[in-house]
């Protein structure tokens, strides 16, 4: 029965990491759209790098949350 609990722990940790795929798509979306906009209007690109990093940070945070859930399942349960 203890093994079954451990099985669930490992499966859950693996499943939690699927959330990183969403964060990856989000960060890629931000960077891709920034590049598309920057190539259309290069003179405005430099002023928007701060916004780029803020957008990336918000998208990436959710991936980090899923990584954290995986870590909690592996080491804290």
């Amino acid at each position: 029965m203890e093994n079954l609990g451990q099985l669930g722990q490992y499966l859950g940790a693996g499943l939690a990491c699927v959330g990183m795929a969403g964060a990856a798509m989000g960060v890629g979306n931000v960077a891709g759209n920034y590049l598309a906009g920057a190539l259309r209007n290069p003179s405005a690109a430099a002023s928007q790098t701060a916004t780029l990093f803020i957008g990336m940070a918000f998208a990436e945070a959710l991936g980090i949350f899923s990584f954290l859930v995986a870590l909690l399942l592996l080491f804290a349960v």
Partner: protein
Amino acid sequence: MTMAEEEAGGLVFHPMDQFVVKPLFGAGEVNWYTPTNATLWMALAALAITALLVFGTRGRAIVPNRVQSIAELLYGMVHKMVEDVTGKDGLKYFPYVMTLFCFILFANFLGLLPKSFSPTSHIAVTAVLAVLVFAGVTVLGFVKNGAHFLGLFWVSSAPLALRPVLAVIELISYFVRPVSHSIRLAGNIMAGHAVIKVFAAFAAIAAIAPVSILAITAMYGLEVLVALIQAYVFTILTCVYLKDALHPAH
């Protein structure tokens, strides 16, 4: 070497072992006053910042030497960031933002040295930084704007029927700020260091050693970039929160 020995060799250390806080002297228990490896590396970060910014600019040369121009570059970059994001009236809080940026940057970079310890990989450390920013910004918002600060949650550009719903969402997102602010930094640094250690464990297996050593090199390059970007992101989010406190108009 037999297969079993090779496998045992690959598992001699756990990827999370590098984050254990140990006392510097002896092996007793860790109390709040015990000097630990975390204390050591935070002190080293402070020393490195002092060396760069105080002793590096001691000459005050008109034509700066190498160290002084690095210090000026760092100062100018953070100064411009605060000015761009928060406006002229945010420059009063520039020293705190500069302190945050330098501490996180140097703690991240020193953590990349082999055998070192990165304080920023611990949520305990980053949570203190993030909660101080959160509490400071909230108090500042109420002191500067009084009850108008609550306008941050009352989106006046939205239809009236939607505003209570948006207020709840805005309120939740406001209180999640310190959580995401701290976990983003700690999570990024912890994840990067753990990945390097996982590849290091694979490097003990002869058949895949070349691939994993290449992977360690590539990850290390990425980690240098991440160390800089995460310090930048933490600081720029501090600036954004500061802007919200100084100009809460929605």
